[in-house]
């Protein structure tokens, strides 16, 4: 195993693999951009990889004329006191504006909007995208911050696209409130479109990801960094797709009624499988493979320990 690849796969922030779900989100956001929507909502369950997918989106978004669109991202958290200024401050800090206590919300707003407006100069359609991650932690009043940004940008002839990302379960309460008529100005601006983000839901999705481990670049694949396939050049990690999927379905998805296999769990699963099991056991034997996959799935945390504990004490 090469040190370079090990350091990549051991650091979840550096390890990135293109998934059909990320591609789907990319297509959806591009569609919103090209169709002139002013915003959207991306919801998904916890640990499905929404934030990761959004980070992956930042560079390749293009306009219809194939000009780059600047993408900015802000992530919110829950606070004791949720004021409008807090929302501005967090946004300012996320784009690199140093904030001091003397700065008012109005001052920050002006600076932030100018920044976004300048960012839009990278394309002739004057589009700029702002992702608001963990938006379920915002109050409805704080959403007005983004309405103001959108309005100010519009005054300057700039098309701001503000996309909110939320945990589907936690966002439910806010969604119900947004349906009220008094919040129609927010709903129609930003929440007219929604995209549901999932983990793996089909074997084919899993296979497309596993294929990337087998794909050879300059004669070597990512898998070659971890296991020795000499004499078994035809062996592919993707050949295990059916086996992995069957075990996942039988042991986890059906009993626990999991909607999708989150990327966080998959990442841990694949890390354990190719780092700890495949190099040390005979992966040519199907029985071994099944055991390795089952153990890796279990170790990946799909079956939460906390839940088992609570059952035990009940």
């Amino acid at each position, binding site marked *: 195993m090469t040190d370079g690849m090990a350091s990549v796969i051991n650091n979840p922030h550096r390890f990135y693999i293109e998934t059909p779900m990320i591609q789907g989100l990319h297509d959806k956001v591009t569609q919103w951009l090209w169709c002139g929507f002013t915003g959207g909502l991306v919801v998904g369950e916890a640990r499905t990889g929404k934030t990761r997918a959004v980070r992956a989106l930042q560079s390749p978004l293009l306009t219809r004329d194939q000009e780059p669109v600047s993408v900015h991202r802000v992530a919110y958290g829950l606070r004791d006191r949720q004021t409008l200024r807090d929302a501005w401050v967090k946004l300012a800090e996320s784009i690199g*504006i140093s904030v001091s206590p003397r*700065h008012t919300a109005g001052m920050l707003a002006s600076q932030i909007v100018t920044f976004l407006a300048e960012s839009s*100069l990278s394309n002739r359609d004057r589009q700029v995208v702002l992702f608001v991650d963990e938006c379920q932690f915002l109050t409805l009043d704080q959403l007005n911050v983004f309405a103001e940004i959108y309005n100010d940008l519009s005054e300057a002839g700039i098309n701001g696209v503000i996309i909110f990302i939320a945990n589907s379960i936690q966002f439910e309460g806010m969604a119900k409130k947004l349906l009220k008529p008094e919040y129609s100005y927010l709903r129609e601006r930003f929440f007219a479109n929604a995209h549901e983000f999932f983990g793996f839901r089909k074997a084919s999705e899993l296979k497309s990801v596993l294929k990337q481990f087998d794909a050879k670049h300059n004669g070597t694949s990512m898998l070659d960094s971890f296991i020795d396939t000499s004499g078994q050049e035809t062996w592919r990690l993707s050949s295990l797709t059916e086996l992995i999927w069957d075990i996942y379905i039988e042991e986890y998805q059906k009993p626990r009624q999991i909607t999708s296999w989150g990327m966080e769990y998959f990442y841990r699963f694949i890390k354990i499988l190719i780092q700890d099991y495949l190099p040390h056991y005979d992966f040519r034997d199907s029985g071994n493979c099944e055991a390795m996959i089952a153990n890796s799935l279990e170790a990946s945390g799909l079956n939460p320990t906390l839940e088992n504990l609570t059952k035990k004490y009940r």
Partner: protein
Amino acid sequence: MINSGVLLIKPYASGYSRLRCFHIVNHLYRSPQLANALTARLREQYRTHLPSGTALYQAVTTMQQEALTQGVTTLPDDEPLTYSKPIKCCPECAAIGYHTPIFDIPWCRFCPVHGALLRRNCPSCRQPWRTLSDLASNSCHLCGTQIPFKELTARGAFQSFDYHKVQEIFTLRTGQQVTMHSGLDTRTHLDTTYPIALNSEFFPSLLNHGCQNGVQSALRASGVKLERTLALTTTVTPYGKPDPSQPSYHRLEIDEIESAGKRNVASRIYHLLGKPKRLRQIRPGLALFDWEEFYLLNGIEQIAYHLWWALVDRHRKGYEVYRRDPTPDLFTRAGLSELPAIPSVKRLVILEQRHIDDLQEGVFLVSRNFAELMYKIELINFFKRVWCFVSHRQRLSSCLSIAEIDQYVQAVFRSDDGYFPTLLRLDKHTLSCVLIKNSLALDIQRRLPPQ
């Protein structure tokens, strides 16, 4: 993150304007922070030695590019920032952070965009317009830097111009039809390869003269007479350096003429001239261009013209005005055909070199609308060539065709590339043109050719 201010920059804005915009969009940063950020990049002291606008903004843009996924655009070349003196500015332009070097031309007294009198003091805080050194610390809402983005947009800083009018101007200038494409936007004017600024950022001063639905209609609606919006100024200055604070300095402006009423104009001017003290002090300069010779003027413009020549005639003893009429001869010999295409041109008046030497200031430009202004700009351009013809008559006499004359004139003026003169100023030794060239305005000072 430091914003570059590129969004607020209008074409042909001065370095002062750019720096002000820069401060406006970074008003959260205290001046030392900004200075340090810039100094680190420019390796120069921000306050004491300002680099040229280009270098400054390239530095800022580079800083911006590092932070953005995709960089912002580059900026056009501009004059170096050398403003240590108080500036003149239009209050309405100041409200959107705009200033152009044209305001600093001595005889330019009205904002060509808004028609407002150019002031040396801010009407809000009554202080002189801030110089670069104290720009950052100024919080006046009109001349300062803390203008919220929302207010700027509300003031129409992003208002676009009429593209068809630009097309018309281009056609008038070049005789070519241009096709508009969809990519006309703020960024296009930053593209130096574009032949003329066919975008919303075209020089507003000129455009608004021809903009039927723009400034003129707004002024009409507000009851302001249109004549006041035009660059109609009759200036009488003493010899030597004009100094408005001196009592001998006197200007006759269209405002005064209007307030006096048409019937009383003649008596008013003669009354002014009849005062002995003033007679001694007022020494009018020369009229370089006698527009009435080219144009049939109407109404207020005719009055202004008559006033001008009344002054000149009255003081003819002090100098000599060369008013012979060599035009037909010149035209015949040069084979020139431009002027006859202008219907109202009657004849040319040519001044000799010694008159130009005497001229301190006083280009008399009267326009009713933009097309007329453009014709006169063409005439100024033409005049330059005619003057050159007169000065170099001996050598030009060997030229047989207009092409040869052109070639000679171009060589004399060292101007072999196309340019678009908008304003012309003559003083004792220097011919200074504000040119629009490849969508940029360049202030080029050209030495007159040696005699």
